[in-house]
């Protein structure tokens, strides 16, 4: 099922808030199997750009297409079957069990009068198992730790089973082992199931190791994109974070440490 069309494409995209422009005239294509890291300083507009790419807020100019059609044109529910979005720090106003929360991800796949079937329950159980939460299925979400809640949000996304995953800081609150496990899981899905991932990350070393492409947001409207080997260098990272960074390690395990 090889398709030449990009799953997500942005043309002449300008994104900003209240007088600040985060990116100007951005052209971006994400193909099935791609794994794109978005890197930038705090406040450089990574989350805003991601929510524009997810169709949750309008761009200042330009357009975003999901598998060839705009979000509005395709409709909210059909779009939700194609792309998923992981928010930063979800909060729970009401008590609910972990499994109920994961099942919320099945919403776009169900008709108006349909209830979750045994198959949906299986999908949810598998998603919880994939992030190591199978044993907490009956726990109240409001009792979870930050890291557990984050993994549950990822399980909800896996239940949604979209072809494009837009992840806003998926590693937030996660222990080191869970950080690596999650990135391995995402890399495996993009390799084996041709799922495309766009991931906001903080660590250029992890980006270089698990993603094949990177988009740098410099915070002043300027952007740079390319393969990780091209754009993730000690010069570009030093400029991006405004602090001198030095690269250590070998080719597939590069780390950037403050000088």
């Amino acid at each position, binding site marked *: 099922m090889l398709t030449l069309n990009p799953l997500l494409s942005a043309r002449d995209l300008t994104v900003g808030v209240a007088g600040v422009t985060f990116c100007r005239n951005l052209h971006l294509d994400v193909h099935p199997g791609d794994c794109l890291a978005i890197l930038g300083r705090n406040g450089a507009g990574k989350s805003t750009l991601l*929510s524009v790419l*997810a169709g*949750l807020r309008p761009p200042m100019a330009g357009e975003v297409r999901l598998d060839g059609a705009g979000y509005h044109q395709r*409709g*909210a*529910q*059909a*779009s*939700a*079957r194609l*792309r*998923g*979005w992981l*928010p930063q720090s*979800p*909060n*729970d*106003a*009401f*008590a*609910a069990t972990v*499994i*109920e*929360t994961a*099942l*919320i*991800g099945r*919403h*776009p796949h*169900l008709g*108006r*009068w349909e*209830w*979750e079937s045994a198959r949906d*329950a299986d999908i949810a159980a598998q998603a919880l198992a994939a992030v190591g939460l199978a044993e907490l299925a009956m726990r*109240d979400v*409001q*009792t979870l*730790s930050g890291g557990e809640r984050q993994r549950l949000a990822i399980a909800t996304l896996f239940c*949604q089973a979209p072809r494009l995953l837009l992840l806003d800081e998926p590693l937030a609150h996660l222990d080191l082992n869970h950080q690596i496990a999650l990135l391995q899981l995402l890399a495996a899905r993009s390799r084996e199931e041709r799922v495309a991932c766009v991931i906001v990350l903080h660590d250029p070393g992890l980006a270089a190791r698990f993603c094949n492409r990177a988009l740098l947001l410099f915070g002043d409207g300027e952007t740079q994109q390319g393969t990780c080997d091209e754009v993730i260098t000690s010069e570009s990272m030093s400029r991006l974070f405004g602090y001198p960074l030095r690269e250590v390690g070998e080719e597939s395990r590069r780390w950037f440490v403050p000088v």
Partner: protein
Amino acid sequence: MPTRRRALLILVALSGLAIASVALALAVGSLSIPIGQVFDILVGEDAGSAGEVVRRLRLPRALIGFACGGLLALAGALLQVLLRNPLADPYVLGISGGAGIGALLAIVLGFGAAATNGLAFVGALAAMLLVFGLAHGEGGWTQTRLLLTGVIVASGCGAVIALMLAIAPDDRLRGMLFWLMGDLSQVGEPSLVLALLGAILLVSLPFARELNVLARGSDIAQALGVAVRSLRRGIYFVASLATAVAVTHAGAIGFIGLIVPHLVRLAVGNDQRLLLPATVLAGGSLLVIADTLARTVLAPQQLPVGVLTALIGVPVFLVLLARTHPRGG
């Protein structure tokens, strides 16, 4: 895991409770009528004085009480999801305040019951449109903006109501206070309110799973394919209409709209597909029971039913809250 079967069983049980509460309301009072005779009257076999009491007085009152309780509980459940705030109740957005101004004005001016209801409804609609217009700033609402606007309009209405109470003639005060506390002693024809309750529930139910998603946050809901903007407007208008209708008929009965959705949520979970119909049945039953007590405990003196809903609702709620498992880390 929510299932249709479990939902159906719970709704059947609650329907039993609703029927029992109405039967109790028909049987109990200054003239005590055995349940068997109540049944005979309802199927039209007894036309004596007991028949008059049941058909002309107790049945309309019980049915209107049930409908108003159901409407208030439903409005509370909807607004708690809309505002993502467990403390929201039907009055938090100022609707009862607007209705209160209208009703008290009618009472001060010496209008009859029909005009009082009419003015109360006009006041409720005015408050609803005012809050909607003010909260609908650039870029749509946020929950905080809507909540703040509602709270401010409600407190403005509260000030006007206090002013009216202060300058009203003494002989009108009792009627005004009863209206404010909620009162079912002057009710008319129940069919319209019952039909509205049914219509509002039927309009809400198809969107119940979308409400489940909306309760997780509006961005998440949008990413999962919910048309958040139109859904939120729809909830606002449906919940406001339900509140306005209930308040118009029964005054500002407190606690039902706040406590019943919580009681039901604690007992059956927060799946709106079950929660919405269950709150209607539970809210209606609680108000009928409270009203039956209100007219019997100190008979022939009638108490405002709003006092009884609080006196029943608060301890029940606290017991249920204490019995649920404490939240561990």
